[in-house]
């Protein structure tokens, strides 16, 4: 049983199709890295898989409540401390292991600092630590390594590898090499949508009632 199966998926951003005909499957322990030039629709594809928007065509098969999504914004509140931020997400997702997650991303010494006082890279690490407390098997990551230094990237790759080792899966859009031996790479460039592909209804209509 695969964690995620995508069949012939087409996604749209602002009413325009970006990629179409994408199919892949992720089994427990697997990772898939999406590549492609800027503006191709990697983020749109990830948001669709995360359930934040609906696909234009195709099908996404996965269990309910399987996805932990991490995007460019980390979802941190500057007025709360690192630990409070993480505890909040742990309680919302019904997960636990806040201390373990802080230790895994090397944030233990910063736990009592307000998120406003963290550097960009430290915020990013805190945002990624959130993945660990969700307890969700499928990680959908959009450029997870932005503003991380080399040591943090290696540390994060280790965290992802551990997650895969525990039967999780990861779908990652990234431009840098994460040194994940078990990861497959999918280049989305061949799936770029043909311009002028017909859309059944006016896009505004889809937005409102789709």
């Amino acid at each position: 049983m695969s964690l995620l199966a995508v069949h012939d998926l087409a996604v749209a951003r602002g009413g325009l199709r970006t990629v179409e005909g994408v199919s892949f499957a992720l089994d427990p322990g697997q990772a898939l890295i999406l590549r492609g030039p800027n503006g191709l629709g990697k983020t749109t594809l990830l948001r669709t898989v995360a359930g934040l928007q609906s696909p234009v065509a195709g099908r996404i098969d996965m269990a309910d409540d399987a996805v932990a999504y991490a995007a460019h914004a980390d979802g941190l509140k500057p007025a709360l401390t690192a630990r409070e931020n993480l505890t909040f997400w742990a309680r919302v997702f019904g997960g636990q292991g806040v201390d373990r997650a802080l230790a895994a991303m090397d944030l233990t010494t910063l736990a009592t600092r307000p998120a406003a006082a963290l550097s960009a890279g430290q915020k990013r690490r805190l945002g990624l630590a959130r993945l660990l407390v969700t307890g969700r098997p499928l990680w959908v990551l959009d450029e997870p390594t932005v503003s991380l230094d080399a040591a943090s990237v290696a540390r994060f790759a280790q965290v992802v590898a551990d997650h895969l080792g525990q039967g999780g899966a990861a779908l990652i859009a990234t431009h840098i090499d994460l040194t994940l031996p078990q990861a497959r790479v999918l280049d989305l460039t061949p799936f770029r949508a043909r311009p002028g592909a017909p859309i059944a209804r006016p896009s505004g209509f889809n937005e409102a009632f789709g």
Partner: protein
Amino acid sequence: MIALLIRDLRLATRAGGGFGLGVAFFLILSALVPFGVGPDRATLAPVAPGILWVGALLACLLSLDRIFALDHEDGSLDLLATAPLPLEGAVAIKALAHWITTGLPLVLAAPIFGLLLHLPMQAVPALVLSLALGTPALSMLGAFGAAITVGLRRGGLLLSLLVLPLYIPTLIFGAEITRRGVEGQAIGTPLVFLAGITLAVLALIPLAAAAALRVNLR
């Protein structure tokens, strides 16, 4: 859901959270009106119920755009939408947090501000009761407006234009309850109407607001 409520309350009471802003605005408004229309009882007492209710309405409006805008900016809203929590529940909780930080202080402070406007003492129970019944509807309707305008630049003004007309029924019956309290009449009928409006809003608006959020998150 409790976690979300606690987080929102904590954020509101920390630096920059805006807790107390609504009450301070309400106070200033109540203090300005006597300067504008004259301080004598004969002028102020008849308009006091209306002024107090309009003041509460505007004070409520001040902090509405914070309900979802901040969560949208830092990405929390995307994450909440993927959380096991139903979005309708998240809307209801955020409206409740807004009411606790804005509406409830208004209810508690209103009797004192009523003094500034020469509101007769016998009307105070009616004023407090009408505000306690009406302000939850103000917060929930505001959450709906905030859900529609989330992600828009300068959405605050549009939010006010959208939400204020929806406040009219609550304002009419709330001010009517207070006016009848001033004149010592029975307040039963407008009270039932106000309670009905609030209950309908609390039951239906979370669904509408969650639908608006889903469209805006795409």
